[in-house]
């Protein structure tokens, strides 16, 4: 193995240590940025906006359902939500189901 003369020479050789990337490094970085831009500008916002519309539609449907229940049943409790607001335990229809 080639020997270094002394530690001082070795420390000096550290400052001359000049490793580099393969040629075309800047091109690779710019290409990667363009690829990431493409992904973020095209697919991601499209997906986000689709998700937003689906979520908003769901929320709107739930609000409409709650209003409908309130106006038809005249109340907004669990029984009204399950559609059994006008029924009691001794109701013939429920008694038949329990039978």
């Amino acid at each position, binding site marked *: *193995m*080639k*020997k*270094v*003369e*002394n*530690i001082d020479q*070795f*420390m000096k*050789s*550290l*400052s001359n*240590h*000049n*490793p*580099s*990337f*393969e040629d075309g*490094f*800047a091109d*690779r*970085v*710019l290409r*990667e*940025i363009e690829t*990431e831009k493409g992904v973020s500008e095209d697919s991601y916002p499209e997906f986000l906006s689709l998700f937003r519309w689906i979520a908003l539609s769901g929320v709107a449907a739930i609000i409409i359902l709650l209003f409908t229940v309130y106006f038809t049943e005249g109340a907004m409790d669990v029984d009204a939500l399950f559609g059994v607001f006008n029924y009691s335990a001794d109701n013939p229809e429920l008694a038949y189901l329990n039978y």
Partner: protein
Amino acid sequence: MELVSQSVQGNMTAFRAIIEKYESMIAKIIISMIGNKDDADDIGQEVFIRFYKSMGNFKGEAKLGTYLARTAINLSLNEIKKRSKRWLTTTSNYNDYDLSSDEEANTIDTKNIINLSLAKLEPEFRSVIVLRHIQGFSTKETAEILHIPQGTVLSRLARGQKKLKEIITKLDVI
């Protein structure tokens, strides 16, 4: 700062100029830190991509070189941590050199001696040696990059040099 503000406005030629200006500095830091050129290339790209994404927030309080060097050091240290978690030693990239084989050992030149000895140095000492001796940052700049006091830089430098001496003595190259 001119190149940065042009890049923020979407001028990719200006951003290319930034990459070309700092590419060799970043290469020196990352390759010296992790040894493997392929991984270093990926990390180098990540340094510039991260800067591209955040350059709108870059106020120029730190020099751009210092800022990029800090990112490069942090990403290199993360890579070293990842490797040690995968039960790989930090010297694994240098195992191609079989020091027991005289024929191969004779082909190892100073550059490879540097790589070998740096790889055997703990990351905290390696980062100081790389920034101070290989990249040539001042003690103050090294302290800023590593977020440590200047006194710590100096003590790590002294201990790092001592350890390097022990390592190259063991490698029987001195």
